[in-house]
């Protein structure tokens, strides 16, 4: 097989931090290479060097045998390298066609080459199986469709090597599967692909070969067929990581009870007559395809949304209209879906975020003044107990890694021994080591007697942690099933809403 791309001895430092050290990597014609590593392992930096966003301190990049000049994205594009960023670089107010042409047109030309560009776009879309409406406004497209536009943008510039940075981070699982099928088809058309990931299952199912980065170094290369998830996990983290296992124990009485709770006006309900019970010492898993009401359920139980009908009680107390502060006071611990948007104030110090929910309690303030020493002591305790690495109470919160930030949020909500825990996508975007830590904390809270509601789109996670599972489909909940009855097929049917058909039939 011919090598289409060779990185040799790449080293890149940012100040004291070494992002890449002597990395050598090659890509063959027509293969899918997975670049695996934890957050901060240097995957994205390496790809940015390849694409010319950064100049390497040492090393060379060769594409189809030609050495690329450093730090020149134009040269990389001209050589046939295309990059699909994790955060899309599309203009939402322009059409698909406009986005494709943006930046590739010479300014000096008077007439736009729209007709030719449109023809080329449709031809590419057809050839690679990426159907798209050239005149659709990008802002109106779904996330999956936008990603397709990003890929088309690269192909439109005649990319023969495509780099995808965490392409599934924003996709629900069926969309992700579809994406990988498309990528496979594209290799048959002669493309070569690198995708960056930290998810083992997709690396195993979608790649031909895996390169593992750890701490900026290339630690291993394997043919996917000859490795296992366990081996990859160990290579990636550098030690054996095992997710903690849920052990059976007796559950207590009902803590959080929802009876026919609806959110939103009749006819356009985000949640439709939900009934569920979470018992003390139990994890109730809510699974479902993204966008089926998980966000509304999270907002309802966080206190951000009020039910339009039905009863919601926490330890017997009506908590339907309490608001966030009231929910906290009633003993609810809430782990939000998006830690950057709702979880922390990035520009504040770690200690301020650690006490943000409980600033007005006598422990942390007196007569309107913040008791800074008490707050910082509490934050230091959280840092130690929840193993937030490399941080002090004074650390600026946005500098924390995703895993450490999530540990901070866990510390904030779990250190007060809550009665009820809402864990909304608690491990989204985290690497293996952090996932294990989050699971361990949730299980510890379960052992301590908390009633936990886990909303997750990761089936393995839901099955591993939950005592009982319910599926959410279009704002409605299925009947609960026990974790022992939850095989993938049954869950798949539940998530497709099949229980409803049965209910109607009987």
């Amino acid at each position, binding site marked *: 097989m011919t090598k289409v791309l060779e990185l040799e001895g790449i080293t890149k430092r940012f100040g004291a931090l070494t992002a890449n050290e002597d990395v050598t990597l090659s890509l063959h014609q027509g293969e899918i290479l997975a670049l695996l590593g934890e957050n901060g392992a240097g995957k994205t930096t390496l790809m940015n060097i390849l694409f010319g*966003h950064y*100049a390497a301190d040492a090393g060379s990049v060769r594409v189809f045998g030609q050495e690329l000049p450093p*730090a020149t994205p134009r040269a990389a594009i001209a050589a046939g390298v295309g990059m699909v960023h994790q955060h899309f670089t599309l203009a939402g107010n322009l059409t698909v066609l406009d986005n494709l042409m943006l930046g590739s047109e010479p300014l000096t030309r008077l007439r736009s080459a729209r007709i030719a560009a449109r023809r080329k776009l449709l031809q590419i879309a057809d050839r690679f199986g990426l159907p798209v409406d050239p005149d659709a406004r990008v802002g109106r497209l779904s996330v999956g469709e936008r990603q397709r536009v990003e890929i088309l943008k690269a192909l439109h510039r005649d990319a023969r090597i495509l780099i995808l940075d965490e392409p599934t981070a924003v996709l629900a699982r069926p969309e992700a599967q579809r994406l990988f099928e498309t990528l496979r088809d594209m290799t048959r058309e002669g493309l070569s692909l690198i995708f960056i990931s930290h998810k083992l299952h997709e690396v195993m199912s979608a790649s031909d070969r895996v390169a593992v980065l750890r701490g900026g170094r290339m630690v291993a290369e394997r043919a996917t067929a000859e490795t296992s998830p366990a081996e990859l996990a160990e290579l990636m983290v550098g030690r054996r990581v095992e997710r903690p296992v849920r052990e059976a124990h007796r559950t207590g009485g009902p803590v959080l009870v929802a009876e026919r709770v609806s959110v939103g006006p009749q006819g356009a309900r985000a949640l439709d007559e939900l009934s569920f019970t979470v018992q003390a010492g139990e994890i109730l898993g809510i699974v479902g395809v993204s966008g089926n009401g998980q966000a509304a359920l999270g907002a309802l139980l*966080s*206190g*951000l949304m009020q039910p339009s009908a039905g009863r919601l009680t926490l330890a017997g107390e009506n908590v339907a209209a309490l*608001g*966030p*502060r009231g*929910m*906290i006071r009633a003993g609810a611990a*809430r782990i*939000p879906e998006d830690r950057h*948007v*709702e*979880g*922390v*104030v*990035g*520009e*504040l110090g770690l200690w*301020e975020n650690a006490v*943000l*929910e409980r*600033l*007005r309690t006598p422990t942390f*303030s007196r007569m*309107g*003044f*913040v008791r*800074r020493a008490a707050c910082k002591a509490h934050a230091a305790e959280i840092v130690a107990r929840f193993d937030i690495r490399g941080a002090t109470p004074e650390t*600026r919160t946005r*500098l924390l890694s995703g895993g450490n930030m999530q540990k901070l949020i866990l510390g904030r909500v779990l250190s007060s021994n809550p009665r009820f825990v809402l864990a909304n996508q608690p491990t989204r975007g985290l690497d293996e080591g952090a996932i294990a830590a989050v699971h361990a904390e949730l299980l510890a809270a379960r052992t301590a007697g908390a009633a936990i509601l886990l909303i997750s789109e990761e089936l393995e996670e839901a099955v591993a942690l939950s005592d009982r599972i319910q599926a959410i489909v279009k704002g409605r909940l299925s009947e609960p099933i026990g974790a022992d009855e939850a095989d993938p097929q049954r869950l798949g049917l539940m998530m497709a809403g099949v229980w409803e058909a049965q209910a109607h039939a009987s």
Partner: protein
Amino acid sequence: MRLERRAHAPLHLVLLAPLAAICAALLLAAGLIAAAGVNPLGAYGEMLRGALGSRLSITEMLTRATPLIFTGLAAAVAFRAKLWNIGGEGQFFAGALITAWIGHTLAAPGWLGVPVLLLAGMAAGALLLAGPAYLRLRFGVDEVVTTLLLNFIVVLFVGLMIEGPLRDPLAFGWPQSVPVDSSFRLPDLIPRTRLHVGLLIGVAAAGLVWLVLARTVFGAETRAAGLNARAAAFAGISLPRTLMGVALLSGALAGLAGSVEVLGVTAGVTTTMSPGFGYAGIVVAMLAALHPAGVVAAAIFVATVFVGADAMSRATGVPSFIADVIVALCLLTMIVALLFTTYRVRR
């Protein structure tokens, strides 16, 4: 070339930014001075001499800095919470008007009357900003528009009052309000100058504002809400209450500026008593990077430009409007300088 976010804004850069901004603004204004046919260095020399050259000029400059401290604090408090209060000028006049009005009719000893009048001025400014804040919370009306337009309404209302019910009959037709009772005048800080104890009140206010912002629950909640409103709301902080609290504090500070100016300097209200103290307060706040201590220093700088420009104009013939140009340029250059404190340029 690309901008890369810094992990921390280093302290020396934060301190350097306003100085660099001021230098850049002076450099740009030098072009205009040269275009007017005057040697910029000489002109700036006259400016410095005019503002800082004698004991009298220094006291005059500090007198001018006093209201700027209050309006600068008002803008800094609001901007930190992302409440864009452009209405400092209107709140200044609201405070001044109510102070003159009550101060003319009130029968009370000075020790009681002065605090009452200062509080009345604060209340007037606070109420004037509470309206736009309510409209933003209830209907999402952009407060930049409402606060800015209110400035003109308030100044015209002041004009109406001093032509009508508050007209001073002893002013020989000058559009000027009745003066406050002389027992309510703020004592001079230095005899036979215009400098009054309002300056001390201003410095104390800066200290208090710092204390509130940096040490109280209200300050912490305001900061959180200003930096990430959704995370603050998720953590149980009431955004409407926080924003309204900020509006009342900011409006009160700008109203206090007008109140102190009346009690300390003008005794009555005129529509020309402010050379744009409210608007200049925005520049003061920006140059101070929204920090209360910086506000005092920035107010002194802007006052130096204002007072010095008059002297420069007399000596060289360059129009004193150059002061407005320099202050406005400072706002623009400071925004650029702030960019460089948060980002670094990389190749």
